[in-house]
């Protein structure tokens, strides 16, 4: 049938010439109303740009969060001792009393014995003190740790090395600085080989380790809560026990405080990553039974990761809604302009119908125009939207991640919006009575 081969959609698809001609016609009429078309496309431009930019920034934020959580070790369960919040009142009343809290040897023993599938339990202790290097000093956390510590916490040594088992046995006077402390005490030269003093004791620096990720709640027992780049000085666990014993004395607000904390932190490694959460539950049970006070806390990086993913999902939903709204607004703008254009060109539609244009020809003519309008707006929006994250990472130092599908998605959605909002004006144009259209002034 000749009618089938003459079907305008088939014709457009089969013949690039006709497509080119229809597009040229659409572009011409867009160009005829430059300012109007530009302002209309602007709605789409901003819609698409905001989607692309927000996706990139959102992906960047969640990427950063996930990286930090991963650093904590996804197979780990981290136990931390927390100074109970009601204890400050107790110390004021009974000044001589020694405040005892936190993770105990008994806890660790029970966990090792009753929770299956646990490979290593690595405890550590920490004390707040002042680290000296020559005339320079810095308030630091002095952390007693085991050789396995960097591996357990996914932390890289930037210089030198960590302790050996031998140094633990020997209770050696060696230390490893974190980046923050190293840069404070040795701003100009390499710290390795130098000496750091804490109180009366000197420690030889054997390495520098990278700072802890911000997701680790760090020095929780102290009122001067540390931030992510707080100074840390690592010494062998055994050395710390030697120097400080089991009870720490501190002078604070006009009175002595005595605290006894066996372990400030213990890292439990679970063999199978899938079992981390169930094992964490078991550990929680043991600790809940052993501790009357709320003097401990458990951090499960896998759970944090899952939370971060959930947050990202919510973020995506919010983002999607904003994107949908902005694109709907853009689409309404297009529809508005196309309705005006249809009214303006009523006469032309009448002429075309009189000369043999079918309804579908007219629909296509207007639809191509809206698709061009939204398509060009979409391209400009993608360009703008790719520029914003680049500028944001450059000037604000925020990580942004541009997923390759994001601009493609935003662009396709803008074109689909063009079609969705262009259909009605186009159909209205096509369904006009030719006689009345011809009479239109």
């Amino acid at each position: 049938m000749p009618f089938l081969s003459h079907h305008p959609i088939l014709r457009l698809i089969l013949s690039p010439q006709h497509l080119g001609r229809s597009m040229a016609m659409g572009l011409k009429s867009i160009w005829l109303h430059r300012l109007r078309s530009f302002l209309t496309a602007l709605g789409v431009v901003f819609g698409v740009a905001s989607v692309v930019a927000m996706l990139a920034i959102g992906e960047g934020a969640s990427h950063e969060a996930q990286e930090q959580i991963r650093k904590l070790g996804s197979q780990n369960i981290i136990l931390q001792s927390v100074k109970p919040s009601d204890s400050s009142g107790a110390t004021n009343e009974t000044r001589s009393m020694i405040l005892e809290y936190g993770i105990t040897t008994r806890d660790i023993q029970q966990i090792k014995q009753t929770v299956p599938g646990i490979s290593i339990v690595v405890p550590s202790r920490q004390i707040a003190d002042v680290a000296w290097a020559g005339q320079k000093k810095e308030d630091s956390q002095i952390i007693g740790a085991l050789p396995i510590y960097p591996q357990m916490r996914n932390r890289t040594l930037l210089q030198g090395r960590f302790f050996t088992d031998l140094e633990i046995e020997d209770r050696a006077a060696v230390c490893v600085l974190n980046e923050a402390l190293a840069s404070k005490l040795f701003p100009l030269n390499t710290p390795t080989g130098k000496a750091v003093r804490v109180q009366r004791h000197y420690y030889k620096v054997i390495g520098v380790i990278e700072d802890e990720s911000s997701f680790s709640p760090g020095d929780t027992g102290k009122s001067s809560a540390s931030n992510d780049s707080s100074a840390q000085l690592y010494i062998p666990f055994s050395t710390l026990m030697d120097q400080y014993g089991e009870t720490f004395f501190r002078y604070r607000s006009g009175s002595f405080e005595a605290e006894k904390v066996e372990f400030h932190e213990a890292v439990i490694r679970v063999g199978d990553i899938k079992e981390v959460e169930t094992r964490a539950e078991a550990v929680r049970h043991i600790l809940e039974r052993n501790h009357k006070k709320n003097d401990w806390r458990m951090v499960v990086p896998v759970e944090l990761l899952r939370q971060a993913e959930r947050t990202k999902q919510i973020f995506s939903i919010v983002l999607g809604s904003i994107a949908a709204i902005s694109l709907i607004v853009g689409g309404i703008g297009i529809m508005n302009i196309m309705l005006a254009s249809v009214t303006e060109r009523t006469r032309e539609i009448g002429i075309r119908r009189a000369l043999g244009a079918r309804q579908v020809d007219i629909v296509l003519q207007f639809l191509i125009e809206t698709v061009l309008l939204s398509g060009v707006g979409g391209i400009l929006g993608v360009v703008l939207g790719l520029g914003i994250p680049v500028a944001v990472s450059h000037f604000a130092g925020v990580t942004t991640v541009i997923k390759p599908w994001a601009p493609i998605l935003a662009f396709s959605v803008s074109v689909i919006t063009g079609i969705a909002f262009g259909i009605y004006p186009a159909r209205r144009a096509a369904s006009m009575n030719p006689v009345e259209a011809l009479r239109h002034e």
Partner: protein
Amino acid sequence: MAGAPQSGTSAVSRAVEPIISLQDIRKSYQQGEFTTHVLQGVTLDIMPGEYVCIMGPSGCGKSTLLNILGGLDQPTSGVYMLGGQDIAQLNDDELSQARCTKLGFIFQSYNLIQQLSVLENIEVPLYYKGMKDSEMRPIAERLAAKVGLSHRMHHKPTELSGGQQQRVAIARALANEPLVILADEATGNLDSKSGNEILDAFDHLNREGKTLVFVTHDERMVERCSRIIRLKDGFVDSDTRTKRALMAA
């Protein structure tokens, strides 16, 4: 025009089928409680090669009749056969295709598309017929030359005089070699000189064998056409062959 089937001016031929056949065509408009009866039973046949003039006082329904003949408007009742085909049986697409290939329109106000050049305007019916770009261009150029506009092919309608615009419209109406050309007061907007030029062009077309249906107030046409149909209040008041037709017969 190439391939014109009819010979000379022997317009009326008993043996041939009519191109247009109207049977009791009525058209009325409903406006609230009132019904305006514009056409009240028009019956007529138009044979190939005829040069028909439809005349009558303003408001008698001439344009309404021509719009029905052109497939732009549907009658309230009656049968309209175009080239042996019942127009009422066609769907919208087929009717559009019939307008495209079987009918050529010429309007009082030219009705050219302002954004398009002379050649592009002439190409519009060819485009809707489904012709390739490469085929369209030579046809449009030949038609532009035929109406004497070879030097204005790339101009826009606003850059042309009224007479020139109407000649573009004639070229456009001829593009698909229609069965019949319909013109509604084609000279109505023109001064007598360019009006006469246009009428000369129509005479020429008729001599080539084209069937023409004209709506006009212009009594000069009486000299040129072969048949005059006078309408009055929606009826055919008179239907006469002119001297020219009788002479040719």
